[in-house]
Protein backbone atom coordinates (compact mmCIF):
# COMPACT_ATOMS: atom_id res chain seq x y z
CA UNK A 1 0.00 0.00 0.00
CA UNK A 2 2.78 2.43 0.92
CA UNK A 3 4.49 1.71 -2.41
CA UNK A 4 1.48 2.85 -4.38
CA UNK A 5 1.04 5.94 -2.17
CA UNK A 6 4.73 6.73 -2.54
CA UNK A 7 4.61 6.38 -6.32
CA UNK A 8 1.57 8.61 -6.76
CA UNK A 9 2.62 11.31 -4.29
CA UNK A 10 6.15 11.40 -5.73
CA UNK A 11 4.74 11.94 -9.19
CA UNK A 12 2.58 14.78 -7.85
CA UNK A 13 5.19 16.75 -5.86
CA UNK A 14 8.51 15.35 -7.08
CA UNK A 15 11.26 13.92 -4.93
CA UNK A 16 13.64 16.89 -4.92
CA UNK A 17 13.01 17.48 -1.21
CA UNK A 18 14.10 13.94 -0.31
CA UNK A 19 17.75 14.40 0.49
CA UNK A 20 18.80 11.43 2.64
CA UNK A 21 21.65 13.45 4.16
CA UNK A 22 19.21 15.96 5.71
CA UNK A 23 18.07 14.86 9.19
CA UNK A 24 14.34 14.08 9.33
CA UNK A 25 13.65 16.74 11.97
CA UNK A 26 15.12 19.39 9.69
CA UNK A 27 13.61 18.14 6.45
CA UNK A 28 10.11 17.71 7.91
CA UNK A 29 9.51 21.39 8.74
CA UNK A 30 11.35 22.57 5.60
CA UNK A 31 9.10 20.56 3.27
CA UNK A 32 6.75 23.48 2.66
CA UNK A 33 9.61 25.72 1.53
CA UNK A 34 10.89 22.98 -0.77
CA UNK A 35 7.65 22.01 -2.55
CA UNK A 36 5.27 24.89 -1.85
CA UNK A 37 2.03 25.10 0.05
CA UNK A 38 -0.53 24.88 -2.74
CA UNK A 39 -3.17 22.18 -3.12
CA UNK A 40 -2.01 18.73 -4.13
CA UNK A 41 -2.99 18.23 -7.77
CA UNK A 42 -4.11 14.67 -8.36
CA UNK A 43 -5.53 13.20 -11.54
CA UNK A 44 -8.77 11.24 -11.43
CA UNK A 45 -6.95 7.92 -11.88
CA UNK A 46 -4.49 8.69 -9.07
CA UNK A 47 -7.32 9.69 -6.81
CA UNK A 48 -9.17 6.45 -7.46
CA UNK A 49 -6.06 4.38 -6.87
CA UNK A 50 -5.27 6.20 -3.60
CA UNK A 51 -8.80 5.60 -2.37
CA UNK A 52 -8.48 1.94 -3.25
CA UNK A 53 -5.20 1.43 -1.37
CA UNK A 54 -5.81 3.88 1.52
CA UNK A 55 -9.58 4.18 1.94
CA UNK A 56 -10.98 7.05 3.96
CA UNK A 57 -7.95 9.34 3.73
CA UNK A 58 -8.97 12.66 2.19
CA UNK A 59 -6.02 13.11 -0.17
CA UNK A 60 -8.02 15.64 -2.20
CA UNK A 61 -7.80 18.04 0.76
CA UNK A 62 -4.05 17.57 1.14
CA UNK A 63 -1.57 20.26 0.20
CA UNK A 64 1.78 19.77 -1.48
CA UNK A 65 3.58 20.06 1.87
CA UNK A 66 1.35 17.34 3.36
CA UNK A 67 2.38 15.02 0.52
CA UNK A 68 6.07 15.94 0.83
CA UNK A 69 6.01 15.24 4.57
CA UNK A 70 4.29 11.89 4.05
CA UNK A 71 6.97 11.00 1.49
CA UNK A 72 9.70 11.94 3.97
CA UNK A 73 8.21 9.59 6.54
CA UNK A 74 7.75 6.81 3.98
CA UNK A 75 11.41 7.10 2.98
CA UNK A 76 12.50 7.30 6.60
CA UNK A 77 10.48 4.23 7.46
CA UNK A 78 12.09 2.27 4.64
CA UNK A 79 15.51 3.14 6.06
CA UNK A 80 14.65 2.57 9.71
CA UNK A 81 16.05 -0.63 11.14
CA UNK A 82 13.04 -1.36 13.34
CA UNK A 83 9.41 -0.37 13.59
CA UNK A 84 10.10 1.07 17.04
CA UNK A 85 12.78 3.33 15.58
CA UNK A 86 10.33 4.61 12.98
CA UNK A 87 7.66 5.22 15.63
CA UNK A 88 10.08 7.19 17.82
CA UNK A 89 11.37 9.32 14.94
CA UNK A 90 7.94 9.97 13.49
CA UNK A 91 6.64 10.88 16.95
CA UNK A 92 9.41 13.46 17.30
CA UNK A 93 8.14 15.13 14.11
CA UNK A 94 4.73 15.46 15.74
CA UNK A 95 5.91 16.54 19.18
CA UNK A 96 8.30 19.14 17.86
CA UNK A 97 6.06 20.24 15.01
CA UNK A 98 4.32 23.57 14.68
CA UNK A 99 0.59 23.56 14.00
CA UNK A 100 0.98 23.13 10.24
CA UNK A 101 3.50 20.28 10.61
CA UNK A 102 1.17 18.58 13.07
CA UNK A 103 -1.65 18.85 10.53
CA UNK A 104 0.47 17.11 7.90
CA UNK A 105 1.48 14.45 10.39
CA UNK A 106 -2.08 13.74 11.49
CA UNK A 107 -3.43 13.61 7.95
CA UNK A 108 -0.99 10.78 7.16
CA UNK A 109 -1.35 8.89 10.44
CA UNK A 110 -3.58 6.11 9.06
CA UNK A 111 -1.00 5.17 6.42
CA UNK A 112 1.40 3.46 8.79
CA UNK A 113 1.38 -0.25 9.60
CA UNK A 114 2.45 0.95 13.07
CA UNK A 115 -0.54 3.34 13.26
CA UNK A 116 -1.88 1.84 16.49
CA UNK A 117 1.32 2.87 18.29
CA UNK A 118 0.34 6.48 17.69
CA UNK A 119 -2.99 6.20 19.53
CA UNK A 120 -1.84 8.25 22.57
CA UNK A 121 -0.49 10.98 20.28
CA UNK A 122 -3.73 11.08 18.33
CA UNK A 123 -5.83 11.30 21.50
CA UNK A 124 -3.59 14.11 22.77
CA UNK A 125 -3.89 15.87 19.41
CA UNK A 126 -7.66 15.99 19.85
CA UNK A 127 -7.21 18.18 22.94
CA UNK A 128 -5.88 20.99 20.77
CA UNK A 129 -7.65 24.32 20.58
CA UNK A 130 -6.33 24.83 17.05
CA UNK A 131 -9.26 23.81 14.87
CA UNK A 132 -7.27 22.93 11.71
CA UNK A 133 -5.11 20.56 13.79
CA UNK A 134 -8.24 18.95 15.22
CA UNK A 135 -9.78 18.68 11.74
CA UNK A 136 -6.63 17.02 10.40
CA UNK A 137 -7.38 14.05 12.63
CA UNK A 138 -11.14 14.20 13.03
CA UNK A 139 -12.11 14.80 9.40
CA UNK A 140 -11.47 12.82 6.22
CA UNK A 141 -9.31 10.53 8.32
CA UNK A 142 -10.13 6.90 9.14
CA UNK A 143 -7.83 6.78 12.20
CA UNK A 144 -10.32 7.72 14.96
CA UNK A 145 -12.97 5.24 13.85
CA UNK A 146 -10.33 2.53 13.37
CA UNK A 147 -8.44 2.96 16.64
CA UNK A 148 -10.16 5.19 19.21
CA UNK A 149 -11.95 3.58 22.15
CA UNK A 150 -15.63 4.61 22.36
CA UNK A 151 -15.01 7.22 25.01
CA UNK A 152 -12.41 9.06 22.95
CA UNK A 153 -14.30 8.62 19.71
CA UNK A 154 -17.38 10.16 21.33
CA UNK A 155 -15.31 13.16 22.43
CA UNK A 156 -14.18 13.64 18.82
CA UNK A 157 -17.78 13.73 17.63
CA UNK A 158 -18.86 16.13 20.39
CA UNK A 159 -15.90 18.40 19.80
CA UNK A 160 -16.67 18.44 16.07
CA UNK A 161 -20.20 19.66 16.84
CA UNK A 162 -18.77 22.19 19.28
CA UNK A 163 -16.63 23.60 16.50
CA UNK A 164 -19.44 23.63 13.90
CA UNK A 165 -17.75 20.90 11.87
CA UNK A 166 -20.10 18.86 9.66
CA UNK A 167 -20.42 15.36 11.10
CA UNK A 168 -20.42 13.80 7.64
CA UNK A 169 -16.68 14.61 7.59
CA UNK A 170 -16.01 12.07 10.36
CA UNK A 171 -15.03 8.87 8.59
CA UNK A 172 -16.79 5.76 9.90
CA UNK A 173 -19.14 7.59 12.27
CA UNK A 174 -22.08 5.40 11.34
CA UNK A 175 -20.20 2.22 12.19
CA UNK A 176 -19.14 3.63 15.57
CA UNK A 177 -22.55 4.83 16.83
CA UNK A 178 -23.13 3.81 20.44
CA UNK A 179 -25.75 4.45 23.13
CA UNK A 180 -23.44 6.71 25.15
CA UNK A 181 -22.79 8.93 22.13
CA UNK A 182 -26.51 9.09 21.53
CA UNK A 183 -27.05 10.18 25.15
CA UNK A 184 -24.29 12.81 24.90
CA UNK A 185 -25.79 14.22 21.71
CA UNK A 186 -29.25 14.41 23.31
CA UNK A 187 -27.79 16.24 26.34
CA UNK A 188 -25.95 18.61 24.03
CA UNK A 189 -29.16 19.42 22.17
CA UNK A 190 -30.93 20.05 25.51
CA UNK A 191 -28.09 22.31 26.70
CA UNK A 192 -28.14 24.34 23.48
CA UNK A 193 -31.91 24.67 23.58
CA UNK A 194 -31.89 25.78 27.24
CA UNK A 195 -29.31 28.44 26.35
CA UNK A 196 -31.48 29.73 23.50
CA UNK A 197 -28.98 28.57 20.91
CA UNK A 198 -29.33 26.58 17.71
CA UNK A 199 -28.80 22.83 17.63
CA UNK A 200 -26.51 21.51 14.85
CA UNK A 201 -28.67 20.52 11.89
CA UNK A 202 -26.83 17.23 11.46
CA UNK A 203 -26.89 16.16 15.14
CA UNK A 204 -29.06 13.16 14.21
CA UNK A 205 -25.97 11.59 12.65
CA UNK A 206 -24.60 11.20 16.19
CA UNK A 207 -27.89 10.76 18.00
CA UNK A 208 -29.25 7.75 16.20
CA UNK A 209 -28.91 4.43 18.03
CA UNK A 210 -26.61 1.83 16.49
CA UNK A 211 -28.38 -0.54 14.17
Amino acid at each position, binding site marked *: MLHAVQRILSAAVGTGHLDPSTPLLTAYPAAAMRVGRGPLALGERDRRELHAVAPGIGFERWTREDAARALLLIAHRAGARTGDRFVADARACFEQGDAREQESWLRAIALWPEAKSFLPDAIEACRTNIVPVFEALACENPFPSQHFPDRNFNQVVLKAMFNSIALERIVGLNARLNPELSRMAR*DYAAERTA*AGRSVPADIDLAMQEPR
Partner: protein
Amino acid sequence: MKIFDPHIHMTSRSTDDYEAMARAGIIAIVEPAFWLGQPRTHAGSFVDYFNSLLGWERFRASQFGIRHFCTIGLNPKEANNPKLSAEVLAILPRFLAKDGVVAVGEIGFDDQTDEEEACLMRQIELAAEFKLPILIHTPHRDKKRGTERTIDAVRRAGFPEERVLIDHNNEETLPVVLATKCWAGHTIYPNTKMDEQRMAALVKKYGTDRIIVNSAADWGISDPLKVPKTIEVMRQQGIDEASIQKIVWDNPVAFFAQSGRLDVSGLEQRPAVDRTQKFATNSVLRGDQR
Protein backbone atom coordinates in the same frame (compact mmCIF):
# COMPACT_ATOMS: atom_id res chain seq x y z
CA MET B 1 -20.44 48.84 43.77
CA LYS B 2 -17.44 46.78 44.92
CA ILE B 3 -16.49 44.19 42.34
CA PHE B 4 -14.54 40.96 42.78
CA ASP B 5 -13.83 38.93 39.62
CA PRO B 6 -13.19 35.47 41.05
CA HIS B 7 -11.90 33.91 37.82
CA ILE B 8 -9.71 35.74 35.32
CA HIS B 9 -6.46 34.73 33.58
CA MET B 10 -4.55 38.00 33.70
CA THR B 11 -1.35 36.38 32.42
CA SER B 12 -2.98 36.60 28.97
CA ARG B 13 -4.19 40.19 29.35
CA SER B 14 -2.67 43.58 28.82
CA THR B 15 -2.05 46.60 31.05
CA ASP B 16 -4.90 48.34 29.16
CA ASP B 17 -7.16 45.64 30.58
CA TYR B 18 -5.92 46.26 34.11
CA GLU B 19 -6.59 50.00 33.71
CA ALA B 20 -10.08 49.42 32.33
CA MET B 21 -10.88 46.92 35.09
CA ALA B 22 -9.83 49.35 37.82
CA ARG B 23 -11.89 52.13 36.18
CA ALA B 24 -14.91 49.82 36.08
CA GLY B 25 -14.69 49.20 39.83
CA ILE B 26 -12.92 45.85 40.01
CA ILE B 27 -10.90 45.79 43.24
CA ALA B 28 -9.89 42.17 43.69
CA ILE B 29 -9.43 39.18 41.41
CA VAL B 30 -8.58 35.51 41.58
CA GLU B 31 -6.42 34.07 38.81
CA PRO B 32 -6.81 30.29 38.65
CA ALA B 33 -3.98 28.20 37.28
CA PHE B 34 -5.12 26.71 34.01
CA TRP B 35 -3.65 25.75 30.67
CA LEU B 36 -2.18 28.18 28.19
CA GLY B 37 -3.92 27.15 24.98
CA GLN B 38 -1.42 24.50 24.04
CA PRO B 39 -0.16 21.70 26.24
CA ARG B 40 3.02 22.03 28.30
CA THR B 41 5.35 19.05 28.04
CA HIS B 42 7.64 19.57 31.04
CA ALA B 43 6.96 19.95 34.75
CA GLY B 44 9.42 22.84 34.81
CA SER B 45 7.02 24.86 32.67
CA PHE B 46 4.48 24.56 35.47
CA VAL B 47 7.01 25.67 38.10
CA ASP B 48 7.67 28.85 36.13
CA TYR B 49 3.97 29.40 35.52
CA PHE B 50 3.01 29.01 39.18
CA ASN B 51 5.85 31.31 40.20
CA SER B 52 4.66 33.86 37.67
CA LEU B 53 1.11 33.77 39.07
CA LEU B 54 2.43 34.33 42.57
CA GLY B 55 5.09 36.86 41.67
CA TRP B 56 5.07 38.92 38.52
CA GLU B 57 1.34 38.84 37.92
CA ARG B 58 0.49 39.82 41.48
CA PHE B 59 2.94 42.68 41.17
CA ARG B 60 1.50 43.79 37.82
CA ALA B 61 -2.00 43.87 39.32
CA SER B 62 -0.77 45.93 42.25
CA GLN B 63 0.54 48.54 39.82
CA PHE B 64 -3.06 49.19 38.76
CA GLY B 65 -4.62 49.13 42.21
CA ILE B 66 -6.02 45.61 41.96
CA ARG B 67 -5.60 42.90 44.59
CA HIS B 68 -4.51 39.66 42.95
CA PHE B 69 -4.98 36.21 44.44
CA CYS B 70 -4.55 32.89 42.70
CA THR B 71 -5.44 29.22 42.79
CA ILE B 72 -2.88 26.51 42.11
CA GLY B 73 -3.57 23.13 40.56
CA LEU B 74 -3.09 20.79 37.63
CA ASN B 75 -5.88 21.48 35.16
CA PRO B 76 -7.73 18.53 33.62
CA LYS B 77 -6.71 19.29 30.04
CA GLU B 78 -3.10 18.59 31.01
CA ALA B 79 -3.84 15.70 33.36
CA ASN B 80 -3.78 13.00 30.70
CA ASN B 81 -0.04 12.54 30.37
CA PRO B 82 0.72 10.28 33.37
CA LYS B 83 4.44 11.04 33.62
CA LEU B 84 3.91 14.79 33.45
CA SER B 85 0.93 14.78 35.81
CA ALA B 86 2.83 12.75 38.43
CA GLU B 87 5.66 15.28 38.34
CA VAL B 88 3.32 18.27 38.58
CA LEU B 89 1.29 16.73 41.42
CA ALA B 90 4.56 16.20 43.29
CA ILE B 91 5.48 19.90 43.16
CA LEU B 92 2.02 21.22 44.10
CA PRO B 93 2.47 21.11 47.90
CA ARG B 94 5.23 23.68 47.92
CA PHE B 95 3.01 26.10 46.01
CA LEU B 96 -0.18 25.35 47.95
CA ALA B 97 1.65 26.43 51.08
CA LYS B 98 2.13 29.97 49.77
CA ASP B 99 0.38 33.12 50.87
CA GLY B 100 -2.08 34.43 48.29
CA VAL B 101 -3.12 30.95 47.16
CA VAL B 102 -6.81 30.92 48.02
CA ALA B 103 -7.88 27.55 46.57
CA VAL B 104 -6.80 24.43 44.74
CA GLY B 105 -7.86 24.83 41.11
CA GLU B 106 -8.89 24.75 38.40
CA ILE B 107 -9.34 21.01 38.72
CA GLY B 108 -12.02 18.67 37.44
CA PHE B 109 -12.85 16.99 34.14
CA ASP B 110 -12.22 17.74 30.48
CA ASP B 111 -12.47 14.55 28.40
CA GLN B 112 -13.64 12.73 31.56
CA THR B 113 -10.89 10.11 31.46
CA ASP B 114 -9.61 7.85 34.25
CA GLU B 115 -6.35 9.85 34.31
CA GLU B 116 -8.27 13.08 34.89
CA GLU B 117 -10.24 11.46 37.67
CA ALA B 118 -7.06 10.24 39.41
CA CYS B 119 -5.57 13.76 39.33
CA LEU B 120 -8.84 15.23 40.60
CA MET B 121 -8.98 12.82 43.55
CA ARG B 122 -5.35 13.46 44.48
CA GLN B 123 -5.89 17.23 44.41
CA ILE B 124 -9.02 16.97 46.55
CA GLU B 125 -6.80 15.20 49.11
CA LEU B 126 -4.26 18.02 48.85
CA ALA B 127 -6.99 20.62 49.40
CA ALA B 128 -8.04 18.81 52.57
CA GLU B 129 -4.44 18.61 53.70
CA PHE B 130 -3.80 22.34 53.12
CA LYS B 131 -7.27 23.35 54.38
CA LEU B 132 -8.01 25.10 51.09
CA PRO B 133 -11.28 25.37 49.16
CA ILE B 134 -11.54 23.90 45.65
CA LEU B 135 -12.29 25.60 42.34
CA ILE B 136 -13.84 23.13 39.89
CA HIS B 137 -13.67 23.49 36.11
CA THR B 138 -16.62 21.80 34.42
CA PRO B 139 -16.06 20.40 30.92
CA HIS B 140 -17.19 22.01 27.69
CA ARG B 141 -18.35 18.70 26.28
CA ASP B 142 -20.82 16.45 28.09
CA LYS B 143 -21.01 19.14 30.75
CA LYS B 144 -23.94 17.91 32.81
CA ARG B 145 -22.52 14.41 33.19
CA GLY B 146 -19.12 15.90 33.98
CA THR B 147 -20.67 18.08 36.69
CA GLU B 148 -22.43 15.09 38.24
CA ARG B 149 -19.23 13.05 38.16
CA THR B 150 -17.34 15.88 39.88
CA ILE B 151 -19.90 16.08 42.67
CA ASP B 152 -19.67 12.30 43.08
CA ALA B 153 -15.89 12.62 43.40
CA VAL B 154 -16.16 15.34 46.06
CA ARG B 155 -18.60 13.20 48.03
CA ARG B 156 -16.52 10.04 47.71
CA ALA B 157 -13.56 11.97 49.09
CA GLY B 158 -15.67 13.21 52.02
CA PHE B 159 -14.69 16.80 51.18
CA PRO B 160 -17.02 19.49 52.59
CA GLU B 161 -19.29 20.69 49.78
CA GLU B 162 -19.48 24.24 51.14
CA ARG B 163 -15.77 24.58 50.34
CA VAL B 164 -16.29 23.73 46.65
CA LEU B 165 -16.97 26.26 43.88
CA ILE B 166 -18.20 24.60 40.69
CA ASP B 167 -17.62 26.90 37.75
CA HIS B 168 -18.88 27.53 34.21
CA ASN B 169 -22.49 26.59 34.98
CA ASN B 170 -25.38 26.86 32.56
CA GLU B 171 -29.14 26.30 32.68
CA GLU B 172 -28.67 22.52 32.74
CA THR B 173 -26.03 22.29 35.47
CA LEU B 174 -27.06 25.04 37.89
CA PRO B 175 -29.98 23.09 39.43
CA VAL B 176 -27.64 20.11 39.86
CA VAL B 177 -25.13 22.25 41.77
CA LEU B 178 -27.71 24.10 43.84
CA ALA B 179 -29.08 20.75 45.01
CA THR B 180 -25.73 20.32 46.81
CA LYS B 181 -24.02 22.70 49.24
CA CYS B 182 -21.43 23.69 46.60
CA TRP B 183 -21.19 27.24 45.25
CA ALA B 184 -22.10 27.91 41.63
CA GLY B 185 -19.87 30.02 39.34
CA HIS B 186 -20.94 31.40 35.96
CA THR B 187 -18.59 32.50 33.23
CA ILE B 188 -19.93 35.34 31.12
CA TYR B 189 -18.39 35.04 27.66
CA PRO B 190 -19.07 36.97 24.46
CA ASN B 191 -20.00 33.82 22.47
CA THR B 192 -20.02 30.66 24.53
CA LYS B 193 -20.80 29.51 28.07
CA MET B 194 -23.16 32.14 29.62
CA ASP B 195 -24.22 35.65 28.63
CA GLU B 196 -25.46 38.63 30.67
CA GLN B 197 -29.14 38.30 29.82
CA ARG B 198 -29.28 34.59 30.57
CA MET B 199 -27.39 35.21 33.82
CA ALA B 200 -29.93 37.80 34.95
CA ALA B 201 -32.71 35.32 34.15
CA LEU B 202 -31.00 32.65 36.27
CA VAL B 203 -30.68 35.05 39.21
CA LYS B 204 -34.38 35.88 38.96
CA LYS B 205 -35.24 32.19 38.90
CA TYR B 206 -32.83 30.84 41.54
CA GLY B 207 -31.99 33.85 43.75
CA THR B 208 -28.52 34.88 44.94
CA ASP B 209 -27.42 32.26 47.47
CA ARG B 210 -24.06 30.69 46.49
CA ILE B 211 -24.29 32.37 43.06
CA ILE B 212 -21.07 33.82 41.63
CA VAL B 213 -20.20 35.38 38.25
CA ASN B 214 -16.84 35.84 36.56
CA SER B 215 -15.31 36.82 33.23
CA ALA B 216 -12.78 33.96 32.91
CA ALA B 217 -11.06 36.28 30.45
CA ASP B 218 -8.03 34.60 28.92
CA TRP B 219 -6.24 34.24 25.59
CA GLY B 220 -9.44 33.42 23.71
CA ILE B 221 -12.35 35.68 22.78
CA SER B 222 -13.38 36.97 26.20
CA ASP B 223 -13.90 40.25 28.00
CA PRO B 224 -12.31 41.30 31.32
CA LEU B 225 -15.24 43.69 31.92
CA LYS B 226 -17.95 41.03 31.79
CA VAL B 227 -18.67 41.23 35.54
CA PRO B 228 -19.36 45.01 35.44
CA LYS B 229 -21.37 44.50 32.24
CA THR B 230 -23.44 41.80 33.91
CA ILE B 231 -24.11 44.17 36.81
CA GLU B 232 -25.58 46.67 34.32
CA VAL B 233 -27.86 44.06 32.76
CA MET B 234 -28.99 42.81 36.18
CA ARG B 235 -29.90 46.41 37.08
CA GLN B 236 -31.84 46.83 33.82
CA GLN B 237 -33.67 43.61 34.65
CA GLY B 238 -34.76 45.09 37.99
CA ILE B 239 -32.51 43.07 40.29
CA ASP B 240 -31.87 45.16 43.42
CA GLU B 241 -28.47 46.56 44.38
CA ALA B 242 -28.07 44.45 47.51
CA SER B 243 -28.62 41.25 45.52
CA ILE B 244 -26.13 42.33 42.89
CA GLN B 245 -23.58 43.29 45.54
CA LYS B 246 -23.97 39.87 47.09
CA ILE B 247 -23.26 38.16 43.76
CA VAL B 248 -20.26 40.26 42.69
CA TRP B 249 -18.60 40.77 46.07
CA ASP B 250 -20.05 39.16 49.19
CA ASN B 251 -20.32 35.65 47.73
CA PRO B 252 -16.84 35.33 46.21
CA VAL B 253 -15.29 36.96 49.29
CA ALA B 254 -17.15 34.58 51.61
CA PHE B 255 -16.13 31.60 49.50
CA PHE B 256 -12.43 32.36 49.23
CA ALA B 257 -12.23 33.64 52.83
CA GLN B 258 -12.60 29.98 53.77
CA SER B 259 -8.95 29.64 52.77
CA GLY B 260 -7.98 31.79 55.76
CA ARG B 261 -5.68 33.66 53.36
CA LEU B 262 -8.03 36.43 52.24
CA ASP B 263 -7.73 39.37 54.61
CA VAL B 264 -11.36 40.46 54.59
CA SER B 265 -10.81 43.60 56.65
CA GLY B 266 -9.81 46.38 54.29
CA LEU B 267 -10.20 44.16 51.24
CA GLU B 268 -12.58 46.67 49.67
CA GLN B 269 -10.03 49.50 49.96
CA ARG B 270 -8.28 49.88 46.66
CA PRO B 271 -4.56 49.44 47.33
CA ALA B 272 -2.41 52.50 46.79
CA VAL B 273 -0.42 52.39 43.57
CA ASP B 274 3.29 53.00 43.87
CA ARG B 275 4.92 52.82 40.48
CA THR B 276 8.39 53.39 41.82
CA GLN B 277 8.24 49.79 43.01
CA LYS B 278 9.97 47.09 41.09
CA PHE B 279 9.68 43.33 40.89
CA ALA B 280 13.06 41.60 40.63
CA THR B 281 14.44 44.82 39.11
CA ASN B 282 11.59 44.96 36.56
CA SER B 283 8.80 47.50 36.47
CA VAL B 284 5.70 47.73 34.28
CA LEU B 285 6.73 51.19 33.22
CA ARG B 286 8.29 51.83 29.88
CA GLY B 287 10.75 54.66 30.25
CA ASP B 288 8.98 56.76 32.91
CA GLN B 289 10.95 55.45 35.88
CA ARG B 290 10.58 58.41 38.24
